[in-house]
């Protein structure tokens, strides 16, 4: 009896140990690639739950596991440094004078990785697929249906888009990797006849997924993706660009900040996403080859989504614009940066990101005297609060009719930066007499509260969008998006719907139909910004810092502020330009 139990136990244990191996599909061992020929990147996620799904038309699908950095090439790439849109699969995308007919020219000689030619048919097929999606559930389907009346092939390399209404930003917004990604073109010969909502675009036997990029998928699992170079890449064949030097790219789920740092110190990770200053210093102490975007403070690269405090402007007591303005005056942005960011970012004076291309608009606002100060004016703020009928109680908190002046700030709980910055703001406001508190919630909760207006204030970046023109950000506060609290609003979740907001939106609408770079725009920005400054639906806080370290042990020529050929965002679709520029380190 006893020994039977023992044997049983041993048997169970051995079976358990072997289980993980049994489920893995047995497949040929891939050729080994040396470490010095491999670049290892970090995936911005805790795991890729469904690694064999490559249908990026479905909103939940990941594509920053290497797919849109090494396989799916964009039509164009916006260069933040120069503000220019650089050609890639497309050579030109030009509007008519009315900005409602756009003509796309494609590069000659592009081939899918299975050898089939990439032509205007693929572009037309992809756009038509989105136009035909009556449920508007596919990514960009609603956008394309909003703008595009029809899409036609002129010849193999030319596509014409007829728009419903003028859109000067048509190329910029959807085809140029303005932020993160763009509309990627699907191979017609694979996608035709598939149900675009359930097709996974994965079949090992058929070699799917395919793209036009210089790398092909070798293996995919929830924790790592391996991509190997395709020697037959069209770019090298046509002289567009030489084959990139890395033979293999690996994207791994590195996980916690400590893991990223340890891996990078050990030369097991070449590019990590967003770490904090202390961690960067620790990594550099152990691995002197680790570099950041800027050599010294602030070390960071500014992500295009500046941080703001946003109010649900219809929720009392902060439905009073003067109270919102008081909060803005009380906040010391410099102090927030010194403590929550350890000096690694810069304060915002307007709602815009501080890129060179945005300077004309930022300057217009500053010259009009509408920019917010970066240091606090606590007493001015307190005067505004007192003018609204509040007086301090025994514990130093403002009170009116027995109710304290409470301000609950909702914030996403998934990143340390968000929580630290909010907690620091809470202390500043408490000190000044506002009973602020932070409410860290998960993404689903904050998104739902944001869209239905069920929050008092939130630490977020709702007006993100502009990187080279002002309309995208300003339009986020457009009254045309207004929905009463309880209904889902896509934008203007601040529910800013006053007369001022309406005047603001009229200017923004007019601005939106002007061609990019029209000289009238800066003055219009200043004109519209008057209403933001007066009613403060949002409070600009700080620029979005991201410390993005690279290890130069195996690979050099990473993008840095001195060598800013592209932004250092290795989770964006513009990573192709980084791959083109990487140089194998010569052993010292």
């Amino acid at each position: 009896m006893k020994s039977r139990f023992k044997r049983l136990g041993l048997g169970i244990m051995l079976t358990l140990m072997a289980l993980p191996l049994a489920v893995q599909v047995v497949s040929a061992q891939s050729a080994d690639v040396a470490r010095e020929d491999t670049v290892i990147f970090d995936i911005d996620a805790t795991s890729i739950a469904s690694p064999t799904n490559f249908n990026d038309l479905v909103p939940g699908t990941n594509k920053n596991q290497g797919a849109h950095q090494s396989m799916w090439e964009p039509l164009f790439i916006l260069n933040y440094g120069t503000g220019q849109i650089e050609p890639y699969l497309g050579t030109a995308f030009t509007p008519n004078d009315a900005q409602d007919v756009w003509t796309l020219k494609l590069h000659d000689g592009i081939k899918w990785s299975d050898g089939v030619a990439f032509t205007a048919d693929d572009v037309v097929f992809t756009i038509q697929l989105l136009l035909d999606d009556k449920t508007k559930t596919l990514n960009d389907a609603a956008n394309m249906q909003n703008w595009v009346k029809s899409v036609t092939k002129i010849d193999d390399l030319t596509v014409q888009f007829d728009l419903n209404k003028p859109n000067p930003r048509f190329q910029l917004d959807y085809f140029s990797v303005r932020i993160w990604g763009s509309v990627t073109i699907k191979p017609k010969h694979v996608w035709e006849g598939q149900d675009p909502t359930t097709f996974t675009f994965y079949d090992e036997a058929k070699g799917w997924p395919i793209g036009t990029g210089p790398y092909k998928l070798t293996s995919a699992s929830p924790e790592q993706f391996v991509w190997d170079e395709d020697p037959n890449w069209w770019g090298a064949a046509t002289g567009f660009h030489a084959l990139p030097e890395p033979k293999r790219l690996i994207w791994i789920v590195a996980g916690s900040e400590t893991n990223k740092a340890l891996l990078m110190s050990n030369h097991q990770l070449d590019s990590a996403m967003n770490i904090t200053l202390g961690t960067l210093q620790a990594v550099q102490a152990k691995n002197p080859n680790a570099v950041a975007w800027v050599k010294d403070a602030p070390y960071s690269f500014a992500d295009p989504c500046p941080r703001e405090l946003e109010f649900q402007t219809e929720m009392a007591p902060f439905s009073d614009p003067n109270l919102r303005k008081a909060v803005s005056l009380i906040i010391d942005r410099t102090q927030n940066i010194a403590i929550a960011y350890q000096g690694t970012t810069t304060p915002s004076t307007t709602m815009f990101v501080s890129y060179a291309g945005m300077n004309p608009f930022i300057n217009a606002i500053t010259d009009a005297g509408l920019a917010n100060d970066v240091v606090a004016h606590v007493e001015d703020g307190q005067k505004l609060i007192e003018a609204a009928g509040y007086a301090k109680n025994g514990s130093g908190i403002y009170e009116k009719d027995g109710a304290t002046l409470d301000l609950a700030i909702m914030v996403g709980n998934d990143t340390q930066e968000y929580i630290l910055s909010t907690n620091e703001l809470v202390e500043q406001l408490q000190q000044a007499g506002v009973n602020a508190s932070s409410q860290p919630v998960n993404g689903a909760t904050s998104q739902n509260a944001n869209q239905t207006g069920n929050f008092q204030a939130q630490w977020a970046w709702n007006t993100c969008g502009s990187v080279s023109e002002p309309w995208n950000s300003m339009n986020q506060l457009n009254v045309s998006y207004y929905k009463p609290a309880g209904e889902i609003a896509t934008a203007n979740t601040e529910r800013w719907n006053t007369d001022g907001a309406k005047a603001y939106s009229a200017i923004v609408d007019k601005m939106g139909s002007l061609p990019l770079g029209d000289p009238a725009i800066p003055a219009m920005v200043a004109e519209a910004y008057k209403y933001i400054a007066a009613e403060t639906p949002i409070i600009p806080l700080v620029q979005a810092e991201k410390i993005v370290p690279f290890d130069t042990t195996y690979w050099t020529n990473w993008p840095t502020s001195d060598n800013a050929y592209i932004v250092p965002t290795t989770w964006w679709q513009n990573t192709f330009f980084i791959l083109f520029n990487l140089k194998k380190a010569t052993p010292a």
Partner: protein
Amino acid sequence: MATAQTTENGPASAAVHTAKQMGRFNRWDTPWLNTKLLLGIGIIASILLFGILGNLFWDTKLALTGKSPLNLPPVGITTTLGGTLTGTWAHPLGTESSGRDMLALIIVGAPNSFLIGIIAATVGMGLGIFLGFTSGFVGGRTDDIIRLLSDVAITIPALLVLIVIQSLLRQVEIATIALLISLFAWPTPTRLIRAQVLTMRESGYVQLAKLSGASTFSIMFREIMPNLIPYLFASFIGNATGAILAAVGLETLGLGPQRIPTLGGTIYFSIQGAALLRNMWWWWGIPTLLLAVMFVGLLLINLGFDEIANPRLRQSSQ
């Protein structure tokens, strides 16, 4: 009364033992001066006292974000990572990365964390003892219902409930987090105690007590409960430690209180700030040390109490 006197050789010897127990009861005045017990109580008391006195002698406002300089090491230590920093008496235990004073953090945080453990364990064990005894002793329909409830509570993943409640509340306080944890701390003791009661219900001395007309209540609490005390106490200590650590776990998932310092919250921030890698040992080390000290205190109380309850143990370890 405290030692187990189960018997298989009949009611007669049980009666003899019961008489002996009564005699020993009177000699309990000395065993209470048990070294381990006193030491354990001393440790726990000094942590609580430290919290009380600390509030009087130290500015606990320093535990709030940004009220102190950043990244200072403890007194007498100098660090060089990212510029030279030397510890000062203004912040004897150093500070962490968002300007919180370590001393103030533990003055407020240690009693808070202890409180979470004690509330959760008391509520959990209290419910467990009550339901477990009722279920095991009363049996029948009551037993079915209690078992059904505890089975349901055991099977539901705690994380699911905790995360949903947190997103409904948005803000969590110390008492809330303790009660949330105790929500999942009662079914296991209920089950285990019920199983024990079932075992003992059939034993000779209980049968004898029944025959002699003792009430259900009296049998439960005078005959069965004392036998389970060592086990219950071990469970209580285990539960209290478990609850403190569960709170740390929840805080590590970002589900804890924000402004109110706890040891778990401090450890969470130290992990997020990669303190281990940055050699900021005071940041993660001090709260961890306090957790360990708390655990040792509870453990010593447990061991000491067992020796009091069970004299044979005392002999064997002396």
